[in-house]
């Protein structure tokens, strides 16, 4: 048993920190919360790619470094906690790359993994449909094999990051005549193909992170298929674990906690009993969450496959994100509802942004309810009927 990083990992952390201090553009540094998912800055992704810090655990022949998942944990922790705008490569690094690595052809690996590690390829992720949210396996979008291509028809919704993306990583029904779980495939499709229409959706923060995507007789080449046809449902389980298990599920608002402690101290609120308690409680909950997240990375580094552990970490972490932003709006009192980002407003409206974004975390990548079911059935062995 030990609960520390190795000296090499600590040196790596220091190197990342130094790099990020120089390279994060000021506008992102000013508001660091949620930048892993909202901060779009392809220049930074390319620089990180040059450092070898995308696809860190992947084989060297695809541009990776063959480092351990604990090293990757150190890297992602620094990226998330510093507010680095890394959205442009995040999906590729976190889940699409691992999916291709696990199930893709050599050609696909060469093309996509190399592009991802250079910070040159951005993916959107197309999972949900209007009639298939938590019940993802009932998805209706069809990709029917016809000669040398798939013909794709249907609609995706709540699709993240597609508006700047080069490709959409998606699941589609490739066999409509078998039971629902057995007719699904994973595809990576060029978003510039004719017949794809993207319509941005405005969320409650006033931004346009999510989209509807319409496919009207889109003809995608056969090599868009990742892995085995009709086997996608079984392939994506692992990919979803990658989506669920990272530090971003706990630490998206960590800079806000850190800076609130500083603000409270400077404003002389540190002797106010209920404020002390609220912040101490958040700190305790954060430290517990950190260990739940570390456990997942540690399992990966041991070659073990986390499944319920990832679901548990995400469920816990995202609920914490909500308690955190809620508590901080309360500490700020009336300023907790001022969204104005001028310098004379405490924490320049960051708590408001965090509060408005945080409901998304308990929904995306598996709602908390779905995740609790996974822990109960896969982890605790409770029956489904």
């Amino acid at each position, binding site marked *: 048993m030990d609960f520390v990083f190795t000296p090499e990992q600590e040196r790596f952390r220091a190197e990342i920190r130094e790099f990020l201090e120089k390279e994060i553009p000021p506008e992102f540094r000013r508001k660091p919360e949620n930048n892993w998912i909202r901060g779009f800055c392809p220049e930074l992704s390319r620089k990180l790619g040059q450092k070898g810090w995308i696809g860190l655990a992947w084989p060297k022949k695809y541009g990776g470094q063959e480092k351990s998942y604990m090293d990757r944990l150190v890297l992602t922790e620094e990226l998330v906690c510093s507010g680095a705008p890394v959205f442009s490569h995040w999906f590729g690094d976190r889940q699409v790359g691992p999916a291709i690595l696990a199930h893709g052809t050599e050609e696909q690996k060469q093309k996509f993994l190399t592009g991802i590690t250079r910070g040159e390829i951005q993916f959107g992720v197309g999972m949900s449909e209007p009639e298939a949210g938590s019940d993802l396996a009932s998805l209706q979008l069809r990709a029917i094999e016809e000669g040398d291509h798939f013909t794709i028809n249907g609609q995706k919704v709540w699709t993240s990051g597609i508006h700047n993306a080069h490709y959409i990583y998606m699941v589609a029904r490739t066999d409509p005549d078998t039971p629902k779980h057995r007719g699904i495939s994973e595809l990576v499709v060029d978003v510039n193909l004719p017949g794809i229409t993207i319509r941005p959706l405005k969320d409650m923060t006033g931004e346009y992170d999510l989209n509807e995507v319409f496919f009207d007789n889109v003809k995608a080449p056969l090599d868009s298929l990742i892995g085995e046809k009709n086997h996608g449902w079984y392939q994506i389980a692992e990919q979803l674990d990658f989506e669920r298990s990272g530090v971003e599920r706990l630490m998206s608002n960590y800079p806000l906690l850190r800076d609130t402690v500083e603000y409270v101290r400077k404003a002389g609120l540190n002797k106010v009993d209920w404020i002390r308690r609220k912040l101490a409680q958040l700190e*305790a909950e954060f430290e517990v969450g950190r260990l739940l997240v570390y*456990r997942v990375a540690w399992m990966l580094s041991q070659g073990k496959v986390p499944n319920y552990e990832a679901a548990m970490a995400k469920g816990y972490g995202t609920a914490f994100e909500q308690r955190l932003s809620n508590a901080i709006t309360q500490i700020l009192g009336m300023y907790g509802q001022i969204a104005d980002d001028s310098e004379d407003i405490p924490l320049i409206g960051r708590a408001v942004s965090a509060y408005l974004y945080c409901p998304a975390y308990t929904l995306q990548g598996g709602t908390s309810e779905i995740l609790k079911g996974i822990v109960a059935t896969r982890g605790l062995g409770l029956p489904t009927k």
Partner: protein
Amino acid sequence: MDFNLNEEQEMLRKMARDFLTTESPKSLVREMVEDDKGHSEILWQRMAELGWMGLAFPEEYGATGGSFLDLAVLLEEMGRACLPGPFFSSIVLGGMTLMEAGSEEQKQRFLPLLAEGKVILTLAILEEDGQYDPKSVKLTANAEGSDYVLHGTKMFVPDAAVADYIICVARTGGSGSSGITLFLVDAKSQGLSLSPFITLAGDKQYRITWDGVRVPGENILGEKDNGWIYIEKVLQKAVVGLCAMMVGGAQQTLEMTVDYAKERKQFGRPIGSFQIIQHHCTDMATDMDGARFITYQAAWKLSEGLPCIKDISIAKLWTGEAFRRMTSLAVQVHGTLGWMDDHDVPFYYKRAKAWELWLGGADFHQDVVATEMGL
């Protein structure tokens, strides 16, 4: 980073679980709740023969020389079994105080006896306000020749009726953390009287009245007026030890509840197939894993001698509340059956509340964490 125990620790865990399953069954736990002293001498001697009393004391005192982390593993199993008796009082509270504050001569004299289970210790810190605060230590010890005479009242002293010696935290001067002295007091001393409390969990705690108890000056542990720094260190270890017991209790609570949810049928299906029960069980499992990791992180840091004041308080405030939440859900999932006195669930429900409050509740530890955060 490594979340696993080592091979020896896994063996210790297995041995402890096997032993406690047969030697400390719930029938004994129940009997000991009813018993005046709550102590089975047969069980105590068997544990001593296994080397458990001396597990975490150095070899030069006839002990095993294990680490604090090893002791945490053992305490976890004791918490799981709801082990009755004075192990925690004697070994953790008493023994650790002796280790921290005792002179070489005192350690040579008492630790081997402690390790053999031939002497039982306890520690008397709290007074009427029930606060772990040096300002609350009011019991006086006045010098008379080479002796000291103790006057005052100690509260909530665990297992005092079976202790051979009581370590008394007394005031010899000043008003805060300076001027506190630790005395190793023969429990049969004149002027010392015990009256038992009726406790929530059936463990044994006493109000001790000290009416001119005479203690030889050579029985001071550590330096005169400088006792509180040792108590602080002992409390750190005791808090983590208690957390380990809570982790064990919580693990048993979770397993019992999940097993029941798989077996119990209503509406023609196991209740564990209903989402609401699944979510209760998942909430318990999350509390469980969080409690386990945060506790073992603190135990590991203590074992390694790393700074960990904040980690310890986080462990206590989290684990105390997590165990309590888990036992509430355990009763809920078991239904009225889980509220019945002859069921095992109430053992854990009661201990969770008692241990949440013991050695500083959430408020106390939140304040420590806030200070450590620079607030």
